[in-house]
């Protein structure tokens, strides 16, 4: 590292939109810290895509970089077109749980299956925050939200397990109470190829915490710390014992031919056949 980390270096001079205590700030700063520690003086090697939701605001328009702020749930399709036609850029997606595994779930699974060369950072605050606190596919069972006033009657989704099953090359989950681990995972993922998924379990004191019984952001971070269970340990416990816990750590690290590799191999083959014809 040549100089000290300064977050401002990577940001446009615009007011940030996040509520006091929002975990998105942690994710933003840990991402930029990772970029800094990897030696990037600026974000010129990156293209950021996001959809709709609070965490879509992490890159757009705040990062001094190319950013494509798409429709709700459609960051991954846009990233597919970008990465295939501009394979040299590093495409990073920021999105919330509603954006990535609610409305955009199908694209998430298929991008992992195709092994599209992108890093998806999902800020999982367990709620639809921007719209005022409605139940999400990640909301814990029996949590009170504005659309589940008697408590959620649905089971939450394990997005990291889904990414692993669908074929991702790297899958990790941390909470915002573990910023260093989160940053190290981002660094590792940025240096890998293929579909990479990092879930950052994050606090939304405004739209989730206050209805779910947390006094403030600090209380939520304490809850994360108390319930974060390393994946190695979680494997040794029963499903009942894991209920309510947040399993953290690295779930998958593997190499598979990536979409960019297989597509450009196909192009080379087609061109060769064309010449032979």
């Amino acid at each position, binding site marked *: 590292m040549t100089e000290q980390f300064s977050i401002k270096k990577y940001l446009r001079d615009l007011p940030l939109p996040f509520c006091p205590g929002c975990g998105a700030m942690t994710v933003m700063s840990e991402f930029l810290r990772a970029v800094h520690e990897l030696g990037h003086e600026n974000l010129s090697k990156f293209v950021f895509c996001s959809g709709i939701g609070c965490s879509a605001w992490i890159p*757009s328009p705040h990062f001094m970089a190319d950013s494509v702020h798409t429709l709700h749930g459609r960051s991954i399709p846009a990233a597919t077109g970008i990465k295939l036609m*501009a394979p040299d850029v590093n495409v990073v997606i920021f999105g919330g749980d509603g954006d990535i595994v609610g409305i955009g779930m199908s694209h998430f699974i298929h991008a992992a299956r195709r092994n599209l060369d992108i890093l998806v950072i999902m800020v999982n605050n367990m709620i639809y925050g921007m719209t005022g606190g409605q139940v999400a596919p990640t909301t814990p069972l029996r949590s009170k939200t504005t659309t589940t006033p008697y408590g959620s009657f649905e089971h939450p989704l394990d997005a990291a397990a889904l990414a692993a099953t669908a074929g991702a090359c790297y899958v990790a989950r941390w909470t915002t109470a573990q910023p260093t681990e989160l940053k190290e995972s981002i660094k590792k993922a940025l240096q890998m190829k293929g579909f990479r998924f990092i879930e950052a379990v994050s606090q939304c004191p405004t739209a989730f915490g206050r209805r779910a019984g947390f006094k403030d952001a600090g209380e939520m971070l304490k809850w994360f710390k108390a319930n974060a269970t390393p994946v190695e340990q979680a494997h040794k416990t029963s499903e009942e014992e894991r209920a309510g816990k947040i399993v953290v750590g690295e779930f998958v690290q593997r190499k598979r031919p990536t979409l960019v590799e297989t597509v450009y191999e196909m*192009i080379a083959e087609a061109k060769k056949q064309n010449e032979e014809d």
Partner: protein
Amino acid sequence: MKKKQDENTHFWQGNEACAEAAIAAGCRFLAGYPITPASEIAEILSKKLPKVGGIAIQMEDELASIGAVVGASWAGAKAMTATSGPGFSLMQETIGYAFMTETPCVIVDVQRLGPSTGQATKCGQGDVMQARWGTHGDYSAIVLSPNSVQEMFEMTIRAFNLAEKYRTPVILLADETTAHMRENATLPSLENLEIINRRKPKKGETAFFGLEEVPPMPSVGEGYNLAVTGSTHNEYGIRFTADPNVHRRLVERLNSKINNHANEISDVETRNIDDCQIGIVSFGCTSRAIYEAAENTEAKGFTVGYVRLKTLWPFPEKTVKRLAETAQKIIVPEMNLKQVFYEVQRVANGSTDVIPMNKIGGGELITPEELTEKILEVAKN
């Protein structure tokens, strides 16, 4: 009798002509999802695009298809998708995004019979209004309407040219009949084709979303710190919703950059429009009946004029108005329930009687005989 075919004449299917034209126009990316009667376009481009270094990819659905098209366009590629009514419905939100973000792209909608699943393999013309008003908000559309295999080729090229010139999504509104029939298409020599490419910014330029009627468009990865958003944004692409004037300025420009050039974009084929008793306004496969019907009825002593709409939107108002000022009556034959009829009636504004002629179901075309009969019936009343 077998016609002698020179090198530039091809006996093509409509969808094939569309795919060939896309490559000639410089398209290098297609994302699509299988749907009858549009699938051939993706199938042919899946074979042909890689040979020229391009990519055709089958996505998980139409939402993803049009999303990937938008992404590819921002990566600098001319990009397209091809679908039919149900898929076209799914794409509407992103078509609005492409309009708002000034993303050039081409959407081919090979119309089939709706609503809903309707009749997947049968022809219809029911997407005229969806092509115009399908996305939410204040929007202006460019929609082209081919009626031959030749025009499937020519209009696909024009669709890319208009998309690049005006930085907006352009819809090629074909139909099952035009897309699936085979006939000769004679290509202009490829060297003489006019191909328009988006204007790129000069170094140091920063206003990619305003200040000019059609601003220059950089690609990602070129070092412009490009901010693209479907939210109301200022000239530099930064979301800005606090000042209503920013929204007015943006959305009025997005609409006027198309509507101020309606005369240039609008394209028609006409006959006798300044001197006829009976006028016909038609488009797409239905319009193939007008030539014979006009001849048939003229042989019986009636003068017939027509406007064939080669662009549906912007609606060729001036030409249709001229016809309305001359013709005693105008017939609007179409394979839907009055979608273009009301538009003709609006333009005629009471200056002449506008008479609908509609046929839906089973993909049955309006035949020259039926149209002849209708003209005679209308002329006699």
